């Protein structure tokens, strides 16, 4: 039971909204203590894992390019492009992007096409806002809703598309784990059984996008829209 001390620290830490970095560090120390490691050993395990996981942060390498493009007006261009397309509503735009992301992930390219830093911030979110603004200015709350849904379609498209791809790491993890337990399965059959859930994900989130759009349209906006609320820290 005491091995779970670290989990308790994480749950409590996130619930009372302590800075997540501190929560994680505390959970590491608690887990090490519960497992009977000394401090040096705990920090070594942590440090080793941090170093091995540096590839997780590689996506931030795109920031100078995205920043430069924003400097030269990329977001504004994305807005005016959508504003000029007559049929482009916010729900349709996000639905199409989600299906595109699912399709791309299903052929194993989730890492190459899409992502929050590469696509959502510089392109998708400004486009979605511009599409929503066709029905009048957005309140800060509505703008936040549009942005949050823009991030959600990137996640849902990738999660419920990638398992359809044979060589995806999750499929290989399943295969590898079952093999350790002396069960041989074909990656293809794992992929096939992932398809019904992929369809369900597209239907459920698609329906919510449609409802979100209706709600945005039906709730009256004040005459002038404000800028999005600055995020508190």
């Amino acid at each position, binding site marked *: 039971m005491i*091995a779970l001390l*670290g*989990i308790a620290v994480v*749950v409590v830490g996130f619930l009372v909204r302590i*800075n*997540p*970095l*501190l929560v*994680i*560090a505390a*959970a*590491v120390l608690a*887990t090490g203590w*519960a497992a009977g490691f000394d401090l040096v050993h*705990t920090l*070594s395990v*942590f*440090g080793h894992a*941090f*170093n091995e996981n*540096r*590839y997780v942060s590689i996506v931030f*390498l795109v*920031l*100078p*390019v995205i*920043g*430069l*493009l924003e*400097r*030269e*007006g*990329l*977001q504004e261009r994305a807005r005016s*492009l959508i504003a000029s397309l007559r049929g482009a509503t916010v729900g349709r735009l996000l639905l199409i992007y989600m299906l595109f992301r699912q399709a791309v992930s299903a052929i194993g*390219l989730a*890492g190459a*096409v899409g992502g*929050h*830093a*590469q696509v*959502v911030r510089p*392109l998708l*979110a400004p486009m979605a806002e511009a599409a929503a603004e066709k029905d009048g200015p957005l309140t800060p709350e509505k703008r*936040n809703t549009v*942005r*949050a*849904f823009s991030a959600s379609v990137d*996640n*849902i498209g990738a999660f*419920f598309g990638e*398992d359809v791809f044979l060589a995806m790491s*999750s499929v290989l*993890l399943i295969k590898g*784990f079952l093999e350790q337990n002396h*069960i041989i*399965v074909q990656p293809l059959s794992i992929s096939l*059984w992932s398809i019904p*859930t992929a369809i369900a994900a597209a239907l*459920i989130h698609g329906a919510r996008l449609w409802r979100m759009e209706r709600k945005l349209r039906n709730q009256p906006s004040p005459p002038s829209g404000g800028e999005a609320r600055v995020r508190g820290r």
Partner: protein
Amino acid sequence: MITLNHIYILMGALFAGVAMLSALDRANRKRFGNAIFWALFALSFLAGSHLSDFENGVLVLALVIVGGFNFLGRTAPATTTPDQRRERAQHYGNGLFAVALVIPFVALAGTLLLKGSGLVDSNQVTLIWLGIGVIIALAVSYAWFQPPALAPFQEARRLSDTIGWAMLLPQLLASLGAVFAAGGVGREVGVIATHYLPLGTPFAAVAAYCIGMALFTIIMGNAFAAFPVMTAAIGLPLVVGQFHGDVTVMAALGMLAGYCGTLATPMAANFNIVPAALLELPDYAVIRAQIPTAIPLLVVNILLMYFLAFRF
């Protein structure tokens, strides 16, 4: 051959630049906090492989202290005004999209076309081509926009400071997972799950397995960490062993049940917290937009497993 190490050096150089510009930013009262934070981050990429595990641990702890105790200031690096941006958007036109597509295009083409070429390390193909794409996109941007020489670093600093300490979260949470594994946390959760849950019918076993996957993923932030634990505890012995469910259906849908948990947890920071920071939203705004999809999808997944696993 180009390996991940070259990309790490690139990453280190970028954030060393960001750190230096941070230190020179007199408008930021906490400029040395920002400078130290990004310098340590850069150091990890430049020298991490040469440091001992313990030294890396101390480095992480230092990052946590600077980032966690509010030593980072808000900054406003020099960039263009909204009016200038509208003007330039008009001037450059849709060619801006072409530059934005350089990175995915290079990542895609490199991954697909140059697979067996030996040009890059085959284990990390996409990440390496992503890095190469960044260099090409930067070269194109310099040639076309002719920005001030330091503009890419200033712009990277603008976005990095927008994300702030959240940038460290994904890597840190992955490391926490490793510490949990070393401390035997997964084993313990499996023991508890099998001891305290009513698992007498096929439906109960399927529901417990799927909900367990989602909940454990919420705690760990990663379905990959939950899968071996819950599958060894409930999936294999009960759904497959006792009730003779199909192992492939169980495994495939079990992993997807875990993804429903990923949609709902701040522990999956790269999917849920980093984008909130990037889009300047409240921390949990993305999670709030996803939970109403995650719950019905989990139910669908349980029903699918129940109706499919015992039929095939």
